[in-house]
């Protein structure tokens, strides 16, 4: 960890509060090297306060209209950049149509943080080992990205993969979750219940396929298609730990990930257990599913 003697006050920056998206993206075009988007602030403010990031401009998008909607579309659920984590967590349409996501949100942070933190903000921050990026990668989510040239859709893998980042002049306005009604489950181990995730797994079992996402075994979230396919074929029977372990080995492409606090070996060893428990949770998921 870098030496520092910072108090918890941010360095100076300019502040803008655009009232619409056009204004926001116009501001982003500014050639200053560091502009940060402020939505929920639960990821950004600690970085500002510890002066880990020192932007010239902070763009507060909280007053932009129509970004806080969860809208069912024909093959996906559209979630605006200001949809709060708690809002998504309790949404019945999300629980039914995007199995695995609500269950993951049950484990994210704590109630007060979720009340303000946004789904998109958490995804774009892509902090190593966190739950939602792994879920987005596994479920094949897509982002709507807007800049002064217009709007386009981008696969989660393009933004959340290793070494990927959002262009400095772009803003994520929506995240699109494919509809795949079924059963979802999530399980996580941490250094203490409720502390930051060490390893977490999402299992989403839809009518046509299963998806498995894993956080904490790589620096970025991991989709585990080999594991997922095997789970789908066997469901409702479950493969044993040794087999999940073998299947996982085929999905692990990224370098092993460890922190100063929990090393890579534990993460790799416990991952099959976490997957197994997420699967059990999905299997036990309630009525109204396919």
């Amino acid at each position, binding site marked *: 960890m870098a030496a520092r003697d910072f*108090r918890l*006050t941010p360095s100076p920056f300019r502040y803008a509060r655009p009232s619409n998206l056009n204004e926001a993206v116009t501001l982003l075009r500014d050639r200053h090297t560091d502009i940060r988007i402020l939505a929920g602030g639960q990821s950004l403010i600690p970085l500002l306060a510890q002066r880990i990031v020192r932007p010239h401009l902070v763009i507060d998008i909280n007053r932009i209209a129509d970004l806080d909607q969860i809208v069912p579309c024909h093959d996906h659920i559209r979630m605006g950049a200001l949809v709060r984590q708690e809002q998504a967590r309790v949404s019945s349409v999300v629980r039914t149509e995007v199995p695995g996501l609500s269950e993951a949100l049950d484990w994210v942070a704590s109630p007060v943080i979720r009340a303000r933190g946004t789904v998109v903000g958490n995804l774009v921050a892509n902090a190593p080992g966190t739950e939602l990026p792994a879920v987005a990668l596994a479920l094949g989510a897509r982002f709507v990205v807007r800049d002064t040239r217009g709007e386009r859709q981008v696969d989660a893998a393009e933004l959340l993969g290793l070494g990927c980042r959002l262009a400095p002049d772009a803003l994520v306005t929506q995240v699109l979750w494919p509809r795949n009604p079924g059963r979802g489950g999530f399980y996580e*181990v941490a250094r*203490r219940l409720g502390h930051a995730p060490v390893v977490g797994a999402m299992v989403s079992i839809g009518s046509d396929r299963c998806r498995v996402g894993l956080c904490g075994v790589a620096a970025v979230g991991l989709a585990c298609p080999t594991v997922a396919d095997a789970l789908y074929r066997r469901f409702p029977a479950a493969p044993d730990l040794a087999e999940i372990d073998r299947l996982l080995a085929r999905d692990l492409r990224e370098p092993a990930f460890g922190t*100063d606090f929990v090393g890579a070996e534990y993460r790799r060893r416990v991952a099959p257990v976490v997957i197994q428990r997420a699967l059990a949770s999905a299997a036990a998921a309630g009525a109204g599913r396919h």
Partner: protein
Amino acid sequence: MTGSATVFGQRRRRREDAPLLTGTARYLADLIEPDMAVMRVIRSNHAHARIACIDFATVARQPECLGFLSAAELPPDLGRLPAFDLCESSAAIHHPVLAGDVARYAGQPIAIVLARDAYTAEDLAELVRVDYEPLAPVMTVDDALRPHAPRLYPELGSNVVHETTQLVGDPEFAFAAAATGVGAVIIEQDFAFPRVMASSMEMRGAIARLEADTGRYLVHSSTQVPQVLRDELARITGLPRERLRVIAPAIGGGFGAKESIYPEEVLVLLAAMRFDLTVCWTEDRVESVTATVHGREEHLRIRAAVHENGIVTALEADCLADIGGAYALLSNTPGAAIATLRGPYRIANFRSRTRSVVTNKTPLNVYRGAGYPQATLAMERILDVAAARLGLDRAEIRRRNLLQPEEFPVDRGVDYPGCPNIVFDSGDFPACLESTLEAIDYTNFATRRAAATTGNALGIGLSFVVEMTASGPAEPARLRLRADGRLELLSGITPIGQGSETTILQILAAHLRVSEDALVFRAGDTDLAPDAPGTFASRGATMGGNAAVAAGTAFVTAARALLAELREVPLEHIVWDGGLLVEQNGHNQPMTLQALCELARSAGIDPLERLDAHAVFPDSGIAHASGCHAAVVSVDTATGIVHVLDYAVTHDCGRVANPLLVDGQIMGGVVQGLGTALFEALRYDANGLPLARGFAEYVLPTAATAPRFALRHIETPSPLNPLGMKGAGEAGCTGAAAAIVNAVADALAPFGVELGCGPFSPDHVHELLYKDPSPC
């Protein structure tokens, strides 16, 4: 006014709660006003470095800069920080307020800047340029002891700054006998206790201002020891005592970490004096990781000789404490550990040695329990290991070794700084043990274990605590009548959240047989209690309570004497009866204090001057509290996660003034101990910087950690003080890690693992379970 003696022992709700609940209590940060200058400390970001140059040129040009100081700008005759070492044999090293030419720990104060607000102060701090010449950091005790290790203090010739030994009986003989004896075992174990942080929710802070009308400096600080702070500030700065007043406002937890005298407390005063400003400083959490003293880090090597019948015939300990780069109390933590190591067990032959070693880390001082938690864990672990080896039940081996009630008082044959002879004053250890075994349903545990669901390994662990409490120095108190008719107690016990006001006034109300509403409690102010040791070492309720009673007695005598004088009768004719003065053989009605005042005034006497009693309760020796702890844990063997299911404590702190508050202390202490056992360890990287910036990295217990509690009390009054009381503040913490370690060891016994002392994080447990066994 009249009350009852029975209020002692009642589960009184706290008087101090209303301002805390409504958010109107004033902690240090709440005393800051907009016109104050904010001090920001520039700290070393090297663990060990020569300070080549401190360049203020840029910051000095900023109009927002109200002042700056480094060691070069301080008065040359400025005193150094105190080292309250109670041992004559220790090295005389005193630390500077600001590092001069060498920084000896990351976080050590190098310089200060002043600005109008905290944000600007931080901006200015970033403009101060410090040039360091890094030196090789000494980051472990092993490193510090190597023959050619860098010396943190070259003039000392060694990194060992303190050493004491204990010797009881003939351990040499006992070990030799065990080595040759049939069926006896010798057990050896090493324990490496990590660094922990007290982590009170309120961090530190200080304010210094010149009072224009008196010419005195008023210093507010979030401190457990305002009187000691006042004396030390006077010594360091050269200001006469009378020109200083120190006030401790509402304090949001201390746990021993606010017991040191810190550089920042001196610096706000120096800055106020130098720049003629009111100067304030508050700590932030990132800063606190290196700026506030740490606790517990020591290496304890134990050897025990155990007869085949379970009797521990000899115990030997070698302790190395990592006390960091500077120190305020360098012998306390390890000294406490080796003095109390045998706990409640007879163990006739004992020798120990402790050494304090300086390293390039934040200074180490006491944290709730000081050295007792470590000693307890080591002793209790040895017993479980011995029991397993000998095929004895863990409760039975303890039974066989416990001192019995009829042996009291027991001279332990060891000493402790300030206490030449440790004598257990009272206790009933066997009763504590049996009570706790019952509370944890010990006899049915095997059934419970067998019924556990697959993948969950249940374990049970015991520990026994004997704790030194109610220490000296002597405790003053003053009781006086106020103009509004209430009695005001001026106490030397500075409350830090443990409910001193309620407890001490309950004691006083019971003694005087007056209503608690007739009493007022004031503390934390050197103007009100000029000389007092402060709040630490579980002494508050016992010493403060006994001192209050002594002051109450003196007050009663003063009131009786005043009426006797006014009535021209002998003192013995006047009796105190629950706030009323009754004349024996007289024709007058019982007199209230108010009426006494009127009578006195009519005779030309100022009653408030007379009805003002001082008393001092002497240092009466250490009252030993004790208790037996038991924990049931469940280990999820697939993930390594440990759940603490049940926790039972039978605690003996003599006569209990307020069981509600004592239970609160025990539960709070236990959960802190669980934190140490399961989550908390502050580690350093290879460069000597801590691997934590706050609670994202340093994991604290939450509500999910709290077990189901079963708390019981046994009272063996202490003969050392009239109230028969003993302290309770540290007991929960002292026994918890030991009980947890034993329980985890029990849960993992079928897997044949060998345990250290934790913390038992999931990955550590997992590693114990699944790492390849070493070849036999």
